């Protein structure tokens, strides 16, 4: 396994839960600045793959290299600090805190115990919160308690919390689940803007949405990569039609 130019190189990744291989010898490469969408039927192992990359689940074998650095076996917070951000499937925000605090807490300074004690909300932090809030369309709701936001706004807030960290690789698990048509559109625009200077992996089921945002699509099935390539090529692949898209 040599060094590569890929931002993320997943090779021969395997994880088995009591003999069931949720991810089976999976290999996947991601370019810098690429927006990759992973699709596949339920239980194909899409979320598990993200769990493995961000360290939530421990792999049985294989390798995950981020910028040529092995990520397997590192504690979660080190993986995050290396530059990998992860959004969960259900919006995972601090409902009891104001939107501002949600974003402020995600700013990547003062991450140690004593650093957090000494942390001050400087002009720089404040500017960044304002900028990100503008990006995700919540500039007017900074003092709202996050729990009062609508479902779509919560999804955006979580994306905003990741943007605060400015990760080089952003992983989003079903970011538009439960959103209205208008919100989907705004989210697609948001994703196109934020992948300008970073790589993004998105898990999604909505084919219209996938078509709109994807540079490349990976189809997973039973823990393996079934097909990979541009959307129109993947869509016409008979195996993909068979297991996922339907006739």
């Amino acid at each position, binding site marked *: 396994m040599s060094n590569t130019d890929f931002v993320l190189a997943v090779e021969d990744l395997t994880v088995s839960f009591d003999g069931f291989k949720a991810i089976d010898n999976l290999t996947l490469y991601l370019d810098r600045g690429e927006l990759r969408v992973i699709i596949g039927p339920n239980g194909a192992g899409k979320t598990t793959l993200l769990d493995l990359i961000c360290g939530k689940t421990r792999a049985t074998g294989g390798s995950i290299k981020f910028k040529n650095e092995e990520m397997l076996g590192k504690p979660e917070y080190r993986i995050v600090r290396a530059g990998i951000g992860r959004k969960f499937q259900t919006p995972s*925000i601090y409902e009891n805190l104001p939107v501002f605090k949600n974003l402020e*807490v995600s700013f990547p300074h003062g991450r140690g115990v004593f650093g957090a004690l000494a942390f001050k909300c400087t002009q720089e932090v404040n500017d960044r919160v304002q900028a990100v809030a503008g990006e995700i369309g919540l500039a007017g709701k900074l*003092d709202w308690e996050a729990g009062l936001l609508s479902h779509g706004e919560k999804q955006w807030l979580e994306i905003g919390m990741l943007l605060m*960290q400015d990760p080089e690789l952003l992983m989003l698990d079903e970011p538009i689940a439960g959103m209205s048509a208008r919100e989907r559109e705004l989210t697609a625009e948001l994703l196109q803007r934020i992948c300008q200077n970073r790589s993004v992996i998105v898990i999604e089921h909505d084919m219209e949405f996938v078509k709109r945002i994807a540079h490349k699509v990976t189809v997973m099935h039973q823990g393996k990569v079934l097909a990979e390539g541009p959307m129109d090529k993947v869509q016409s692949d008979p195996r993909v039609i068979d297991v996922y898209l339907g006739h």
Partner: protein
Amino acid sequence: MNNAFLTWFRTRGLFSWLALAVVLLVLFPLLLDSFRLGLVGKYMTYGFVAIGLVMLWGYGGVLSLGQGVFFGLGGYAMAMFLKLEASDPESTKIQSTPGIPDFMDWNQLTALPAWWEPFQYLPVALLGVIVVPTLLAFVIGYALFKRRVGGVYFAIITQAIALILTVLIIGQQGYTGGVNGITDLKTLLGWDIRTDSAKLVLYYVCAILLLLAILGCGWIQRSKLGTLLLAMRDKEDRVRFSGYDVAMFKTFVFCLSAMLAGIGGALFTLQVGFMSPSFVGIVPSIEMVIFAAVGGRMSLVGAVFGALLVNFGKTYFSESFPDLWLFLMAALFIGVVLAFPNGLAGLIDSHIKPWLARWRTAKAAAPMAPADPAPPPVPAAAAQPPEPSLPAHLAQEKT
């Protein structure tokens, strides 16, 4: 300017702190006789444990049922020093080995154990009061939180540690004084701590330290660390996947609560004049949680009032209804927790503060009001009483 200062004061919850300071420093010394004041001094030492639990349980969401361990360790560290001072060869000359604590002599020890030696020196003992509980908490916390042990399991393990320490203290009679504890403490560097005037001084020392500890904890609550604790309680995984080592934050707040409990224990020993395993075990540890629950586990000042109130209740009930008092205490606890889950402080937040705010708005709207710059229109969301679980400084901090 004046208004800005008032706002600054209010967002830091300093009005309730000031009220507590007045009660502790002025009201009680004026109104209570020296016996009752001594009792308040004793209750205040539990206040340290209670504010530690506000940080650990209220903010950190980690319930420890073993705070008595740290209270006891702090208390014993202090008691060891005082006991050694009280056991000079002159006053222990009737013992078969003069110069060692009496209980050691009764247990056929002929020399001071090596680990007692450093406690001859006050600075070492004072350091021990702080370091020993903190270090033990660090070891327990690091081991458990790194393995993601939390919730009920953590509570059970801390409870087991309280039991273990009690058994250890009682079993090692020759080294610890056994079930009687370390008694007959007389002087601190030659200053008799049993006189009324000494008790008054110790009362003030205790009250001032407690008030300072509340300020310190309030500062931590308002720091990013405080926000992170609340965030962890809400969505631990989100904090972890935002690049924070969650286990270290929990360990920190556990150490903080242990240190506060240790200081409380040391002040207890000084004021009451002895330390025994009955303040270490499971029952006192659970009582300490009751103090915080009754006072309000999100409010530092509330928790201190909780500690005072529950202990007053305990003394009053046990004096007036010797057979019934435990049941009455239990009823008080269940009643408060059922009726006001955020304790007495939560009651004030949800009932008295909105009433005050209405009263203030009504006054400001009156035509006779001075022509101050018009108050900014209150957004609809802010006019609502804040969620009781949301600390005041977060609810009011607008950008």
